[in-house]
């Protein structure tokens, strides 16, 4: 999304198979009008929707416990911020810690599996089983085995975020160009050198695609696990506050929590996309702007 294709790439590609005389040309820069429109149109659309919502609620006199007006939700944001902000931090902690652990463990296991066909045969089926079993169904069991609910939530979110990173990275490590592998062999590269200089860079785009999926999934799993686990009090995350608001018919706060969750999801997606774009912008087709 947003980040990709926004910036101009300074050196355009020469068409494959073209003759030697061709010289790289600078592509025309995106016009200022287009850049403004890219931001202005979605913002205008958002404003339009919010205004229409406000007018509808006011004119039709919809009670706030059924559909609160945007202004009312804004008020809830301000008054409930001590509660919601704290919940947001708890949810973010769970999400990012789970994502971090998933990242490290997923990549490590993928590398381990790439070293030997036997290790892969032994481990991969269990990774699949963990992935396909619904997390809500495992959550009660995890709750029994962990001492705090926080740990249980972390494990749930990790389990869900782990698999896309593992499978994508493993796929990337396996799909190394055969000729390049031969070349490394010919030049006497060690296993370690082949991993560092060839297999890992080759797996990077795959890994980043996995990371983008895992980022969103980690948040979803953190919320779902909290629904299942039902934390309360000091350690309550956004999901608990959302359920709580529903029980109390505090619909403006429910909406505010929902908006926070959506924004968090969008922010995670944006951040992972940005990282992906930034790491691949120089060489990978997915991040490069081409002119035809």
């Amino acid at each position: 999304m947003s980040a990709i294709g926004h910036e101009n790439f300074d050196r355009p590609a020469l068409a494959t198979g073209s003759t030697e005389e061709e010289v790289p040309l600078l592509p025309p820069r995106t016009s200022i009008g287009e850049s403004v429109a890219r931001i202005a149109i979605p913002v205008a659309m958002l404003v339009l929707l919010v205004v229409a919502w406000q007018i509808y609620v006011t004119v039709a006199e919809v009670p706030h416990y059924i559909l609160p007006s945007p202004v009312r939700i804004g008020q809830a944001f301000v008054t409930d911020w001590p509660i919601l902000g704290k919940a947001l931090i708890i949810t973010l902690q769970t999400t990012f810690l789970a994502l971090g652990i998933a990242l490290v463990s997923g990549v490590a296991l993928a590398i381990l599996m790439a070293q030997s066909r036997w290790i892969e045969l032994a481990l991969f089926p269990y990774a699949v089983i963990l992935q396909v079993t619904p997390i809500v169904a495992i959550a009660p069991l995890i709750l029994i085995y962990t001492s705090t609910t926080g740990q249980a939530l972390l494990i749930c979110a990790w389990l869900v975020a782990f698999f896309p990173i593992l499978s994508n990275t493993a796929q990337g490590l396996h799909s190394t160009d055969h000729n390049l592998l031969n070349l490394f062999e010919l030049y006497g590269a060690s296993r370690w050198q082949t991993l560092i200089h060839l297999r890992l860079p080759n797996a990077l785009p795959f890994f980043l695609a996995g990371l983008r999926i895992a980022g969103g999934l980690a948040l979803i799993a953190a919320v779902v696990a909290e629904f299942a686990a039902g934390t309360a009090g000091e350690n309550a995350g956004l999901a608990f506050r959302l359920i709580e608001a529903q029980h109390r018919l505090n619909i403006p706060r429910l909406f505010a929590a929902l908006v926070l969750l959506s924004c968090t999801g969008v922010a995670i997606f944006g951040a992972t996309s940005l990282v992906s774009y930034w790491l691949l912008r120089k060489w990978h087709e997915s991040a490069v702007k081409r002119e035809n």
Partner: protein
Amino acid sequence: MPTPVVRTTVAEAPRTIVPQQQTLVSLRSISKTFSNGTLALKDMSLDIGRGEFLSLLGPSGCGKSTVLRIIAGLGEPTSGTIEWTTAEHDAAGHAHPEIAFVFQEPTLMPWATVFSNVWLPLRLKGESKSSAREEVMEALRMVGLDAFADAYPRELSGGMKMRVSIARALITKPKLLLMDEPFAALDEITRFKLNNDLLELWQTFGWTVIFVTHSVFESVYLSERIVVMAARPGRVFEDLKIDAPYPRGDSFRTSALYNENCRRTSDALHAAMGERPH
């Protein structure tokens, strides 16, 4: 660095009389059966002279690429031996630092700049970027791409990518350069230009080159010797010597001598293909 004079002397000496002195590598009854049962090569024997420009010419499926890979040590023959007559080459048939391989595809790492791609063979030997800089830039100058050191492969044309691949091959100062249909995917203008550049580099460095191709015209233009291979099973069909002086330029491409050699080679190739049982 050997001069062209040294190379010419070596190549034109009569191989048949004193083969031990200038043979670089000998294939002795090499056979290769793939795991699916295909007999790719049968009883192939070949002496390759030091400093020689040899082409392996044949229809697809005649095992010419397989021969190249076996010489490179990328796959063991099912039976037969490879003898390296010079001491620098270890007889195990594994990675030889003096061998360079150019594939049909440029086989560049897309995430690395032109500089880093050429640096790779030295980097794998533990040479740092700063200490390799001079050599890398020199190799890039040889192929006329020193201005593109910081470019990424995707920014280059097909011909330029192949030049990078050649620069990477020559940076190790190989004794033996193995080329597997390196210019097959390029347009004719680029191919002619790279043919000339390759001959020039060969004369400068005194490499031994084994060049796999399916083009009669390319093989005659480049080679001192053409080994025509037949398919199913892959074997040597005919061993032709191309008696034409170097340097060869565009005038050679249009000469009667070139035509005559092309016809001779073409006839041999047709005979090799016609002989194949259907």
